[in-house]
């Protein structure tokens, strides 16, 4: 098993992931690791409907996906791993899911968050959690679609939010 892309994207499965990233990294399996989605059968069905059958879709809680990712089940798959938030990414890392690089895609703004790019909004808690992920040897970059330039997240945070 190889994780070809690990990404934080609050929209989870959507056009940017399916039309741009899947062909770019040549993934044949998408793993959505999120406790809420895993518990909502309706949302699982909607996501399944959007993914072509040539791509395997696995939706599970953080613990479930951590054990699937370490099992032999996905041995030959090229996996695109999706998290909804920095919190989920950190928890997955602590559960033993290893990925060398973490991509920040869409992190929607809400009250109390500062916007750093068109698509990324962070608060202090996000920054601390991402720092903890980075401390475990993960490179963190921001890149919305493959056509955009990849940028280290420190550059982003240093440049300041608004």
């Amino acid at each position, binding site marked *: 098993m190889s994780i070809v892309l690990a990404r934080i994207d609050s929209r989870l499965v*959507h*056009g940017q992931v399916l039309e741009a990233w899947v062909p770019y990294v040549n993934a044949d399996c998408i793993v959505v690791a999120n406790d809420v989605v895993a518990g*909502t059968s309706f949302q699982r*069905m909607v996501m399944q*409907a959007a993914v072509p059958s040539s791509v395997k879709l696995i939706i599970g809680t953080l613990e479930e996906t951590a054990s699937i990712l370490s099992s032999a089940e996905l041995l030959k798959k090229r996996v695109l791993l999706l998290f909804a938030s920095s919190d989920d990414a950190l928890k997955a890392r602590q559960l033993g899911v290893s990925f060398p690089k973490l991509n920040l895609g869409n992190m929607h703004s809400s009250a109390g968050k500062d916007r750093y790019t068109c698509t990324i909004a962070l608060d202090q808690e996000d920054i601390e959690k991402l720092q903890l992920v980075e401390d475990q040897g993960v490179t963190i970059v921001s890149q919305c679609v493959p056509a955009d330039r990849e940028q280290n997240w420190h550059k982003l945070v240093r440049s300041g939010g608004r």
Partner: protein
Amino acid sequence: MKERGLSWLTLTRMYLRSFLLQASWNFEKLQNLGFFYLILPGLHSLYGDELPEEVCRRHGGYFNTHPCFAPLVAATVLRLEARSLAGEDLAVDVETYKSMVMAPFAAMGDALFWGGIRPLAALIGLLVASQGSLWAPVVFLVLFNLPHLVLRGGGLLLGHMQGLNAIETVQKCRLPDLAIRLKESTTILIGILCAYLSYKGCEHQSLSVVWGFVLLPVVLLFAWMAHKGVTSLFLVLLTTSSLLLLALLF
């Protein structure tokens, strides 16, 4: 209390309003006003002339999905509104429903219409146009708009009749797989069009058709450049300026 349905007149008005979904498309909230405008006739028939404030709050915010799937979402939203008005407990509440489905439907619509149907219809139109026929635009418009208009209307009825279960019906249609088949057909037609142009070019220059194969690596090179992010504008300027230069020199 019994759940209130929508009249045919209301559904027709919503169908027509769906064509104005993106009239005020904006960077801030995308289709927020458009979606409210779309469901307004339905909301009026459920709540009467004066809408409760929480209904306005619920549907006035950020929204974005593919225009062809918006009627389906709208009709389902109104079913959910009608059920909660009738006092039913909903498994998925209206706001959660909207936030859950907009991204997957957007992905499906982008793949099917912008990635699949539109290029395929345009390629067929171009092959007709290459015969010098003014039917080309008509053929293109008919091929694109048949599925377009049917999906808008069909989605509206499906959402109206099946509510939350409409998604199961959509899933059975395997639309993302259909989109891939359409894209494959498009690549084949691109090949046919390019070969036909090479043939005509050789014929015009009274060259042997074998020379037509020279164009194959050229097109592949340009396709690779486009894949790497080189813009069409740059490629056009590059080819035309070099062709004009060649014409001036020889």
